[in-house]
């Protein structure tokens, strides 16, 4: 009997632990923790941002879909607007060496300056570990994590799948919608959408 109770306790503890940690990305569940280094050599751990709303943006500066949102200044405006409201915006590049989107640190810094990007950090994920952990398929692929570390949005930046800048003003912006909901103490109305973009250039 004692052995049974002990086994049940262990099982219970494991279940409780699993509910607080996740190694697979799933909507409405804890976002998987990760550690990456940014272009300036600083280390970022997702769990360091507990208590903050975090946006993850998978990026490849040479992808025509990313260019749509950066050449139009759409992405930068959103980054800037919500940075002022305390949101952490982490751009992550999972392009492998020699593949499109993989740049030297100097080139990355140049692109950030040229585009006027307002991301909190540009994280380098050359081996694609974090991209695969999050099942990031395209650039841009957007994820939003609430203050409790729960994934509350994953998918496209907006509703019109194209490379045409003219479509931005006509589209519903899912990221803005989700962030506004969270800032008003609500859950996003739209939690999962089909992302669109260039494939992430994994190894």
């Amino acid at each position, binding site marked *: 009997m004692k052995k049974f109770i002990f086994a049940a306790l262990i099982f219970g503890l494991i279940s409780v632990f699993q509910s607080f940690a996740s190694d697979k990305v799933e909507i409405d569940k804890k976002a998987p923790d990760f550690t990456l280094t940014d272009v300036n050599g600083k280390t970022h751990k997702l769990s360091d941002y507990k208590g903050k709303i975090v946006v993850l943006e998978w990026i490849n500066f040479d992808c*025509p879909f990313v260019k749509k949102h950066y050449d139009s200044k759409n992405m930068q405006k959103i980054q800037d607007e919500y940075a002022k409201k305390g949101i952490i915006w982490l751009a992550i590049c999972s392009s492998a060496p020699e593949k499109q989107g993989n740049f030297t640190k100097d080139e990355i810094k140049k692109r950030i300056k040229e585009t006027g990007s307002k991301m909190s950090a540009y994280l380098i994920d050359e081996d694609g570990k974090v991209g695969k952990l999050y099942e990031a398929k395209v650039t841009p692929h957007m994820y939003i994590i609430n203050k409790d570390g729960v994934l509350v949005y994953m998918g496209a930046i907006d509703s019109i799948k194209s490379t045409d800048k003219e479509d931005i003003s006509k589209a519903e912006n899912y990221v803005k919608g989700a962030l506004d909901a969270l800032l008003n103490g609500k859950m996003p109305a739209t939690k999962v959408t089909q992302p669109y973009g260039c494939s992430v250039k*994994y*190894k």
Partner: protein
Amino acid sequence: MNKLFALVMLFFGYGLLTASEGNKHVDISVKTEKDIVAPGDSIWVAVIISPKKGYHTYWRNPGDSGLPTVIDWNLPEGIKIVEHKWEIPEKNIDGEITDFIYSEPHVQLYKLAVADNFPISDLKIEFRVEWLVCKTACFPGDKDMILKLKVSDKKPKLNKKFAAYFDNIPQRLEEWGIGATKYSDKIEIRLTKPPGYSEKIRKIEFYPYTELVYDNSAKQNFTDEDGAIVIEIPLNKNFKDNFFNIQGIIVADEYLDAFKKYKAIEINTIFKTF
């Protein structure tokens, strides 16, 4: 004269420089099944999309990445599209990314219906094709096209080669019984074989028309016994919305019809839910 020549060359050169990168890698052409269509009749039109070697464009559901090729018609009053068909795509798995692509010349077929009272006329119908073409990098492209269409009561001359464009089009093969059951994490499609069907199928998969619902990368297991093929299609664990039917194509490695012409069935089935 030299100045004029220089000006022409400058204009020509500028045009070349600004030609879209995406336009360089895809050729577009158009063919019709016959040279004339009568008022009250219909005509099949093939838009032929040819990616250059090493490049690919995308199916109506591109999969994890990419964009479908879109054709936008400027049809006159009295002419409408009554059918639109896509060729079977290739399922391309590149590591974590699964897409439905075309790396060879392929068609989108349109059936245009002409109203009974449409005037006898020679038409120039404009249409625009927009695509994403990729190799290791992707480029958007577009082309404005003209379909010349003669509306007349005269006897049409048939394009004998046109029938071949249907060879790679999924069919609704009524001789197969199709049922689908939805579970919490998968859909099961049951295909009941027609009497006498004896082909040994080694590979069969479902390609969905709908994005987001299905896990494109997940393996689809199937069994083939007791006169039926049952395919298990994993759902996208992050898609939580309710849905009531399954639409797409079943693609096999063997012919599925008695005339040995078709390797894909088009399905649109409401399912039972568990």
